[in-house]
């Protein structure tokens, strides 16, 4: 490559970086205008007083024995709902993943495809569609629909988690199957192995570890979801949180939130502990827990038989005809969806920016340990402060689910997108902060050891060692968070924090099936488009990284 050509190439790559940044900025500004969010609401005197009241409740929780007992039982119920939900989700999701995945094939085998092959292709697309539907409708929407169909209580939440998590796990597990080393699979196929033996001897050993660790991560998420679903009456501690906010009982709110926090923090440690020891035993432990949870919840399964009837009754009561695709409804749905997207974008960009700047302070190697193996003097006592303080803060931020943050912010700044953005932003900051710190921790220490050994500052270690190694990954994770956040934002309207959720909530409450289908379709189509674009972008980013 000649010198001028090289410099032109480099100039182009720099230009692309700047163009990307500019596009991000413009998009953020446009989003801001779209939501019409007014940050002054944060400093509104009445709202601030409300916020102070909530904080007061958190500082002086209701520690009466009876209420504590009550909270504990609700928390246990939430955990049981999550465990039962994930267990059912695994039962649904694993077969679906097997159906939806295209495991590595021989490259170009002679012979014509048989009927069986064609059937597999059809099954694959049906399964993929089904999984996509399951996970694209947010769990709280499933929960509210089931509340209407099988009544208040934990059953609705278990079903909702089972369905939406089956969608997520099925997709992930299918991706793991497709990411298997093709050569080992082909070796078996080339020697005439059947699908069972291909699975048992090539695919399963490769995916086992991933399946377990992702299953455990989802397990954690499910309990978090379960804690929230109570907001629509599906049992657990969420119901208590919603009620205490509605009746201004902030001491009780304090107790419930602190209990939730403690539970989440414990669980995080628990799941890290479990993940590092993931083994055959953790499957059986999970299965046992699932059975115990399902039995312990004593779910009214008989309600399931009445679902069809109940749907008809609600349908008649709503007075709406089955499907009425109304132009105005579609337009309104699109408007609300735009607002949802804008909210998700602002919150994610802000959280990612703050997180990428804060995360180095939560990295052990940068704050306290350094990259050298055994230097004469290594400890930086002040580093511990930033490390532990920041990690604790991030943990609290992410332990409180978006919807609970939203409940609180609606009280503070009033209903509307501002509350939603703040809620989403704080929760995302907690998640991305930890994720980014983990990415930094895992970065190869090659260049970093050299930097430290030549006396470079920690800033230089960050800019010239960590960032170049991790930047594409950070961007990809941020992008992925945005995709997830679009779904989350769509639910914030359930508590009045802006976006399309409010309309969905109304449609389910009144059982306007036509409106609901329209709204969900718009949501699904947009989510699918965003996912597809995001997937391509992320793939390019990560390819660039490797």
């Amino acid at each position, binding site marked *: 490559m000649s010198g001028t050509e090289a410099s032109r190439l480099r100039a182009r790559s720099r230009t692309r970086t700047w163009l990307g940044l500019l596009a991000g900025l413009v998009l953020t500004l446009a989003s801001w205008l779209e939501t019409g969010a007014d940050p002054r609401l944060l400093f509104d005197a009445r709202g601030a007083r409300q916020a102070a009241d909530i904080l007061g409740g958190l500082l002086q929780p209701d520690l009466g024995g009876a209420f504590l007992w009550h909270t504990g039982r609700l928390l246990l119920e939430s955990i049981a709902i999550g465990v039962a939900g994930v267990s059912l989700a695994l039962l649904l999701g694993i077969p679906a993943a097997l159906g939806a995945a295209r495991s590595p094939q021989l490259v170009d085998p002679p012979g014509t495809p048989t009927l069986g092959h064609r059937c597999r292709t059809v099954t694959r697309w049906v399964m993929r569609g089904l999984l996509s539907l399951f996970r694209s409708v947010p769990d709280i929407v499933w929960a509210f629909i089931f509340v209407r169909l099988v009544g208040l209580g934990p059953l609705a939440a278990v079903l909702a988690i089972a369905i939406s998590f089956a969608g997520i796990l099925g997709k992930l597990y299918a991706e793991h199957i497709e990411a298997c080393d093709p050569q080992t699979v082909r070796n078996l196929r080339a020697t005439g192995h059947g699908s069972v033996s291909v699975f048992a001897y090539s695919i399963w050993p490769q995916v086992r570890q991933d399946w377990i660790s992702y299953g455990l991560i989802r397990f954690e998420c499910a309990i978090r979801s379960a804690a929230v679903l109570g907001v629509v009456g599906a049992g657990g501690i969420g119901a208590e949180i919603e009620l205490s906010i509605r009746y201004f009982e902030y001491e009780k709110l304090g107790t419930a939130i602190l209990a939730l926090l403690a539970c989440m923090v414990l669980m995080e440690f628990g799941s890290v502990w479990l993940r590092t020891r993931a083994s055959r035993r953790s499957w059986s432990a999970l299965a046992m827990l699932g059975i115990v949870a399902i039995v312990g919840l004593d779910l009214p399964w008989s309600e399931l038989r009445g679902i069809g009837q109940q749907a008809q009754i609600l349908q008649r009561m709503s007075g709406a005809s089955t499907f009425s695709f109304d132009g105005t409804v579609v337009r309104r749905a699109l408007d609300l969806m735009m607002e949802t997207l804008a909210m998700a974008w602002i919150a994610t960009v802000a959280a990612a920016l703050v997180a990428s700047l804060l995360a180095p302070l939560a990295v052990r190697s940068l704050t306290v340990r350094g990259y050298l193996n055994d230097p004469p003097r290594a400890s930086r006592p002040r580093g511990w402060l930033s490390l532990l303080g920041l990690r604790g803060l991030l943990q609290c931020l992410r332990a409180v689910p978006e919807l609970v943050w939203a409940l609180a912010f609606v009280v503070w700044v009033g209903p509307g997108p501002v509350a939603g953005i703040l809620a989403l932003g704080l929760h995302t900051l907690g998640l991305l902060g930890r994720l980014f710190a983990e990415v930094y921790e895992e970065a190869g220490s090659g*260049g970093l050891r050299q930097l430290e050994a*030549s006396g470079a500052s920690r800033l*230089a270690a960050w800019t010239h060692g960590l960032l170049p190694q991790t930047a594409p990954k950070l961007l990809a994770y941020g992008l992925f968070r945005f995709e997830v956040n679009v779904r989350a934002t769509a639910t914030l309207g359930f508590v009045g924090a802006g976006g399309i959720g409010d309309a969905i909530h109304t449609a389910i409450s009144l059982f306007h099936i036509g409106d609901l289908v329209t709204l969900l379709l718009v949501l699904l189509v947009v989510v699918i488009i965003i996912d597809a674009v995001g997937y391509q972008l992320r793939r390019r980013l990560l390819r660039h990284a490797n």
Partner: protein
Amino acid sequence: MTGPALNFHGVSRHYGPHTALDGIDLDIARGQRVALIGPSGSGKSTILALANGALRPSEGTVAIDGVELRSKTHKQLVAHRKCCGLVPQGGDLVEQLSVHDNVIVGLLPRWPWYRVLLSRLRVVEEKRIAQWLSKVNLASRQTSRVGELSGGEKRRVAIARGLIGAPNIILADEPTSSLDPHIGEKMAQLIFDQAEAQESTLLFATHWVSRARRLAQRIIGLRNGRVVLDAPAEAVTDDDIEQLYAGSDERH
């Protein structure tokens, strides 16, 4: 400024049950150019890491210009490391960065924070780095990503990075391994010339004994963590070398 003197007194270093250095005593004068030779695992890299202030001796003391390493504060240690130019054995390059950005890493330690930040946002010091890259025969590779380079090219990037900051101490850990003989010769010459011009203290670990005898002022032979040969380069005989490597297959 002449490079510092290095004094090792009764220095041992253990990695778990394994003993890398076993009570060595060494005094390296200011600006001396020393070649460390000896079979693999004889403790050459450990001596370099100790001189860098990146490794704690298990026993004994390492002193730099008379000041013991362990008595230095963290800040003083960092100040010492800033004077070191490293050519580590593994290369330790950041694969995702361009050759240019990897070489610039050799300059970073002495820059204020805003300059460090700026250097990631736009291209700086282009000429100076181009100059160094032409010295290591990589002039055309300035904008390539390090991940795309061959093993030998990576070694040379590491050499440019180690030398560009005009370090007072040059610690080169087998910098010419995986280079072809011709280029290897040139690189070794470059490192020794640079050390001579700057009067830097140089520790040059190598397997290439004949070259070491020609370029270095002093040869230190290590075996099983002990100094078994320590003489001016011209006084080293073939018999000494034979003895040092006796029973071991390696040797260039």
